[in-house]
């Protein structure tokens, strides 16, 4: 095979053109494009989030479309563990979601990091609710999602943790009562294990749910200590934390915590096991209330691969047992949960703002949030309309849900809002090294202090 001779000049020209073309293509790809306002009443939007569940999101979209029929929204649920990994490149491109969830603290898609790609929603809020738009909205939520004076995301709901969720059917089946003390908890778990039923299951994984358990135990040991430690006003190496980690470790050795906590994940492992009736107790927050609804539980069970014909569990919230034996009232702790941000590069910024502010700051939107039961609304005066909520077992569940509403009504402690990514990882390390016998509670507390970044 032979080729015709080409002059040096031709070669150089071809090379220059190829390089220039490549650079132009690269620059075009890198630069992306800026967004445009578009119509506030019309558009096709995509919404990404790790929460809510698909069925819950579709409820919200259906209600939204009753007022805005020309704004079509597609919700894409992404597992929380991989949400940030998916979101970052999407936002860097010009094909990212129009609306996306943001977190207030911890690890992952936090407003402090990802807020730079979000539109300031303050003008939209003013347009919707007037100059005093903050009145009536959850003040902590507005504050936490405001960065540099700009509202980077509209808080949608708030969640609280510090309670347990139990499978009441299993407790009734074995004639057991919800435990109130450590000894009662051991006894209950012993019975469950004798019948090959899991007792208290928890996954110690990077999602960080074990922090809720540590926080709750700490509130049982010394109310207020954990919050002070997060704020840097108390040392993590304090004896209160050592005792907290000791109790945490003993949950396993006392037969309360199911074996293998370090090898499973809260979602999907623990969640699926509890919803399918294999486990009697889990520690989840108020977001778990959504599964007291027949439709939401059914959808979640289908997602977990459980047969449609399986009996739906009667799950109810109970106070966390007094594990320290000091008789303290164990306070709940709360955060604004997710908030909706609008992508700066969206082609439908106005329509996206319409949806985010409708869901987060209108009575109609917040009533949907309240009735979905996965969040507490952030707009004052909105409560779930239980007449419209199909509960799995209304008679049994209603008293417990009423207790939960009271328990979480006056929460003062923050949950994850003030926890940095570094501290989040350090807390996970302390929980897992203690449970895995890699460190004593004293050593783990010392390490936690040194790695907390405080």
């Amino acid at each position: 095979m032979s080729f015709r001779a080409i002059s040096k000049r031709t070669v150089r020209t071809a090379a220059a053109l190829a390089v220039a073309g490549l650079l132009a293509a690269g620059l075009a790809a890198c630069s992306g494009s800026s967004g445009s306002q578009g119509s506030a009443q019309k558009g096709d939007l995509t919404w990404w989030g790790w929460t809510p569940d698909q069925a819950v999101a579709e409820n919200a979209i259906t209600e939204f479309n009753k007022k805005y029929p020309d704004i079509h929204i597609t919700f894409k649920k992404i597992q929380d563990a991989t949400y940030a990994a998916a979101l970052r490149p999407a936002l860097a491109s010009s094909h990212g979601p129009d609306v996306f969830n943001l977190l207030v603290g911890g690890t992952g898609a936090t407003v402090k990091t990802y807020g730079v790609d979000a539109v300031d929603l303050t003008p939209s809020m003013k347009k919707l609710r007037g100059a005093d738009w903050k009145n009536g909205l959850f003040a902590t939520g507005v504050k936490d999602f405001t960065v540099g004076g700009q509202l980077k995301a509209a808080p949608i709901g708030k969640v609280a943790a510090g309670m347990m969720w139990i499978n009441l059917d299993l407790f009734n089946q074995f004639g057991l009562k919800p435990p109130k003390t450590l000894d009662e908890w051991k006894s209950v778990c012993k019975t469950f294990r004798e019948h090959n039923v899991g007792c208290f299951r928890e996954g110690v994984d990077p999602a960080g749910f074990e922090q809720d358990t540590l926080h709750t135990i700490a509130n049982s040991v010394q109310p207020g200590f954990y919050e002070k430690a997060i704020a840097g006003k108390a040392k993590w190496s304090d004896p209160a934390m050592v005792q907290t980690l000791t109790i945490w470790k003993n949950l396993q050795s006392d037969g309360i915590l199911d074996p293998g906590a370090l090898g499973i994940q809260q979602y999907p492992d623990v969640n699926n096991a509890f919803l399918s009736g294999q486990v009697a107790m889990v520690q989840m927050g108020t977001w778990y209330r959504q599964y007291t609804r027949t439709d939401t539980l059914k959808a979640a069970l289908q997602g977990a691969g459980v047969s449609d014909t399986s009996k739906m569990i009667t799950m109810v919230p109970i106070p966390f047992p007094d594990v320290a034996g000091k008789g303290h009232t164990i306070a709940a702790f709360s955060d604004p949960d997710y908030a909706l941000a609008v992508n700066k590069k969206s082609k439908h910024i106005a329509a996206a703002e319409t949806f985010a502010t409708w869901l987060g700051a209108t009575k109609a939107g917040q009533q949907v949030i309240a009735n979905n039961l996965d969040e507490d609304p952030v707009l004052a005066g909105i409560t779930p309309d239980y007449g419209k909520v199909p509960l799995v077992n209304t008679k049994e569940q209603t008293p417990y849900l009423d207790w939960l509403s009271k328990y979480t009504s006056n929460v003062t402690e923050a949950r994850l809002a003030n926890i940095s990514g570094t501290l989040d990882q350090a807390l996970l390390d302390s929980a897992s090294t203690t449970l895995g016998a890699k460190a004593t509670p004293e050593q783990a507390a010392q390490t936690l202090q040194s790695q907390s970044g405080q």
Partner: protein
Amino acid sequence: MTTAIPARRTRPGRSADGARAVNYVWLLPAFVVSVAVIYFCVGYTAWISLQDWDGISPDPMFIAFKNYARMFADPVFWDSLQHTVIFFVVAFVAQAVLGFVFAVLLHSKVRLAVVYKVIVFVPVVIAPATMAPIFRVMYTPTGQFNDLLGAVGLGFLKQAWLGQGNTALAVILSIAVWSGTGISFILYYAAIGQLDPEMIEAARLDGAGNVRILWSVIWPNLRGTTVAIAMLTAIGSLKLFDIPQLVTAGGPNYATEFLGTLIYRQSVPLNAVGYASALSMMLLVLAVAAAIILRATGRERSTTCLRPGACPRRSCCSWSPRSWCCRSCTRSWRWCRSRWRAPAGTTTRPCWRSPSCRSSSATARSSPSA
């Protein structure tokens, strides 16, 4: 005997420079793509590794080599390297042994051999994302693996396999070996198929049994394949991410943390993109170093022939100072021409002259035997 290489012909009126220029034009697309896609990314990652950056903020801070200093002081980094070494050694030995055994067995007359081949190879094509949840369920305290142990009377071994550091790494290894053995099997199977049957026949005539043939004839001739598997496993170990991330997320207590999972942990959940980039640069350095070391130490060396003419395809039987040896024909003709010297008193033709080395071995039979 050596043969002069004819000078390359050029067309009248065409300069050598012009011909070279044409060659460069054909190289250009691949060059541009590789520079843009690979080398630009490497350079960009190196630059980011000198920054304190969360991956999104528009104002990263230049901190020179602080990320590298942090890396060398990070015990999790050293743990991940240790896990990588353990993974490489165990995975390589297990996959090489299993792959070789399966390849040898399936080269013999086995009924339903095709079915066995499919069974051995299928795990290679199953996506880790598909199999990881299954393994996670299988190895839970209430999973099928513990059930199996109980069923065969080993109930005392039941435990939370993924919940303990020492067993979690073993589980990751078992999954990796299960999913990777098909590759080593297929490589060995193909390599054994390339061996000259005459060589094995010659060994039989010399009185070698099956085990002797396997150990002294077949296995040494698969050295190149073994080196290739070692190189693939080494690079795979350094890049390992999917299985530990999906099965254990690097836990418990970083017991299954590898460089890949550590980079992910720092980059995504912790938003420490600068530090993750420094780890990525270290991964690149280690991968290149591993490839160079394995290539240097694994260069195909001569293997003793049982007799002249017994060398496999693409190698020639030639006289070395002490014995007849099979030499690889994989070198370029330029290299052969510059290095090859006919041993005194032999008539062996250099492999670079033979389209098929078999022809060279035919001429070698007339030369002095060892």
